[in-house]
């Protein structure tokens, strides 16, 4: 049996059932939070952006077009919010910012290595222009299709592919230079 899709809860919410929106938040808050976190590299900003995205989504719920997946619509908002924040602050444009990233807990060595890996990847991502960073996040961390990415970023599929390929090249170069990717 398939789970109730998001449209059912959207409809419920539009009919006045506020708690139905809570279900939607529960389903998508982690993804939205991580998109914001990977783009801004600030835990606090990611929280603020996530909260802002869901409040806006609630206010504009009647404008949601059911032809598209709800999560695509939410991602689109999240992306716009995060990009607007970056433009306003101009602090995270291709810089290696470390101070706001969540502190690592003391864990067994294997967990620490994994966290260290995340830190290395995030450092490398922050060296990319925000447009390329965004597309890497949507493709590799959120595992979205070219079409879904195109809708979220407002780009044709062909542009998504070419930008993704360029972003990968750049990220690879950064990781190679930092010694994180081995030469074959």
């Amino acid at each position, binding site marked *: *049996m*398939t*789970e*109730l899709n998001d449209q*059912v809860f959207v*409809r*419920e*919410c*539009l*009919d*006045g*059932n*506020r*708690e139905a*929106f*809570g279900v939607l*938040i*529960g389903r998508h*808050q*982690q*993804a939205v*939070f*991580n998109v914001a*976190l990977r783009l801004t590299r600030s835990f606090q900003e*990611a*929280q603020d952006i*996530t*909260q802002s995205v*869901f*409040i806006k989504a*609630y*206010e504009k719920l*009647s404008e949601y077009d059911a032809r598209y997946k709800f999560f695509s619509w939410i991602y689109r908002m999240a992306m716009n919010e995060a990009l607007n924040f970056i433009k306003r602050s101009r602090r995270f444009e291709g810089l290696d910012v470390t101070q706001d990233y*969540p502190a690592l807990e003391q864990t067994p060595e294997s967990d620490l290595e*994994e966290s260290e*890996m*995340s830190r290395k*990847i*995030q450092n490398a991502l922050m060296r990319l222009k925000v447009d390329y960073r965004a597309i*890497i996040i949507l*493709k*590799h*961390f959120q595992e979205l299709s*070219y079409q879904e990415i195109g809708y979220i970023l407002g780009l044709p599929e062909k542009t998504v*592919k070419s930008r*993704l*390929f360029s972003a*990968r090249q750049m*990220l*690879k170069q950064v*990781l*190679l230079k930092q010694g*994180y*990717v*081995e*030469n*074959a």
Partner: protein
Amino acid sequence: MLDDKYLELMHGELDGANSPKASAKLGAYLAANPEARQFYQELVSMSAMLQEVKPVAPPPHLQHAVMNALPPRRSSAQTKPNLLLEAGKWLAAKFEFKYAFAFAGGLTAGVLVFALFLPAKLQEEATDWSKLYGTIGAPHAAENMPGEKRWEIRQSEVAGTISLKNAGKTLAIEIALDSPQLIALVISFDGKASRFKSFMCFDEAVQAEMVMDRGAIRFAHTGRQNYAAAFELRAASVPVMNLQILRAGEVVYGEKILP
């Protein structure tokens, strides 16, 4: 210098977007070209690294904070615009197009007049529930509103009530059941005659789980739970519904609700 078309194939291979023929073509190219092979391996290594990055959990209070910050919401029925008022505003704004809006005004008035005098048979009639029955209990006359039937269940595995309320084009099934063990209530319906519309929980600490498949919805819960499912009636006749209560995979109650 690597060929652009093979670069595209490499990225396509990474994304699982290549056809078998394209994959084979890429394979042959990589086998014959060490520089390309190195480039592709570096891409694969990087992709594997990215896959190792785990998502970060949002702070636990975030959902609560968002819910508290939501503005008050009115139902979509209350927020529907006053069409006549909006039309009036539009007409006033477009005064310079007097002939165009005179035509539009006449057309609107004609449609409204036609709608007011629609034949009565286009209106939905109340459904006759007098022949509803089921082994979960004999239906009895509703105590409050017309178009309502209620069944009381008094068994060792499960007890409670199931109510059917017909409001014109909408059929609501309210479930208030209590069971010490996990039970499932399955409502099967004819998709041509009715359409599942919505699900609502009446308890704050709801533990009910609802899943939907074509032509059936399934509620699973333990303890006392109160929830409802609404259906939109598509045909003029009462839709056929099959209601079953299961415990540990076995049917405890089951009956076809017939008009």
